[in-house]
């Protein structure tokens, strides 16, 4: 897998799974990121059989695998 940002869940202020700034770790191994770690906005995520692509309206492509 070609991970652009494998640490998306912990690299910003917001949790990539729930978008909260106070989350202490709800990320599930088999879930793609759903929230932008920078701004907490919901990501546009395309899951394909071999990977996924996550994009923030303001911060662009954030993660793929």
């Amino acid at each position, binding site marked *: 897998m070609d991970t652009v940002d494998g640490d998306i869940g912990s690299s910003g202020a917001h949790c990539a799974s729930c978008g909260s700034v106070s989350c202490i770790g709800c990320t599930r191994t*088999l*879930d*793609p990121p*759903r*929230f932008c770690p920078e701004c907490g906005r*919901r990501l546009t995520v395309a*899951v*394909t*059989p*071999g990977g996924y692509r996550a994009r923030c309206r303001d911060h662009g492509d954030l993660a793929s695998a």
Partner: protein
Amino acid sequence: MRCIQAAWFRRWADRSPGSGLLVFGILVRPTTVAPMSGDATTSPTPTTVTLSPPRRGEPERPEIDPSAARARIHAAETALLDERRLLTGEELAGLAALPDDYVTSLAALAHQVRLTWCGPEVEVEGILSAKTGGCPEDCHFCSQSSQFDTPVKATPFLDADEVLRAAEETKASGASEFCIVLAIRGPDERTMQRILELVPMVQEKTGMNVAVSAGLLTEDQARRFGEGGVHRYNHNLETARSFFPNVVTTHTWEERQETCELVRTHGMELCCGALIGMGETDEQRIELLTQLQDLDPTEVPLNFLNPRPGTPLGGERPIGAWEAIRWIALFRLGLPGVILRYAGGREVTLRELQSMGMTSGINALIVGNYLTTLGRSADEDLQMLSDLRMPVGALTGVL
């Protein structure tokens, strides 16, 4: 996971003197329970073993006379392998009531039934959510419903290049089937046209059979899909008729049944799956099995609830792995000739027991990712099949 010193185990030990329980392949007997803190006894030497307690909603199955249990299994074997007939709901209920110690026997029979009725091949499929989220329906397990506040953001229909790229990814994993899935109640005319353009494109580009899952269909839509080269159409019953109103209120079980019947009428193979673990009872799972027998689908994808944040079922726990193996076996025994496919939730439900599912009746897999969640890698699944000496091949209706 909790320690067997937990109260429930002690209750079980008290109820079942002299009996045993298989824990990770080790027979644990109540006499090996460590004394509770404060117990006066100091022997035998404490042994700590951990195991999963029964989950909420999993029935406690009473002990049964071993000869009666063996007789039920033997009768099922005779019916399925010698008489080659379907089991009745009553026979299936008798098997479902067997205690946990008999799950391996059910699994062994299910594997033999699968080989006898379907052969050794395992079918590999990839699925793509071509239009994600924003669905007006309220299926309580689904993160793509617009009626629930879930993390899944609605996205429009992927363009043809993206769909073709995903199909090629799937083909590279050795798959023979590719399913285009849309989160919609049913297709409007524009969606119909997009799907009917994509199906021959994917087929021509990859050589794979193309399946579609686009919700409820009218008769005309079913006819057009059938004529348009859709090999298999997916429309799940999900659960028994009697339980369906607990999990979906925006359409009825009968509407789903009607679409399933239209699929068959118009020459497509019917893929009609189940979702286990939403709070339904054993009796309702048996009810679903008999309803699936009546519909006679080619394929049954078997999903296990993976509770999704924000959905009404988001607070549920996945069913236990051993319980999942039991129901994989029972689905094979109830539907001996179908393509029984591992679908969503298997990683979180079965964990290390995924290969055991393959020898309990499963003969098809969704490889790679699912619609909104990730799966384990296709390479891991292909290695598993190789280790099990199970050849990959295309399957079709064998009943």
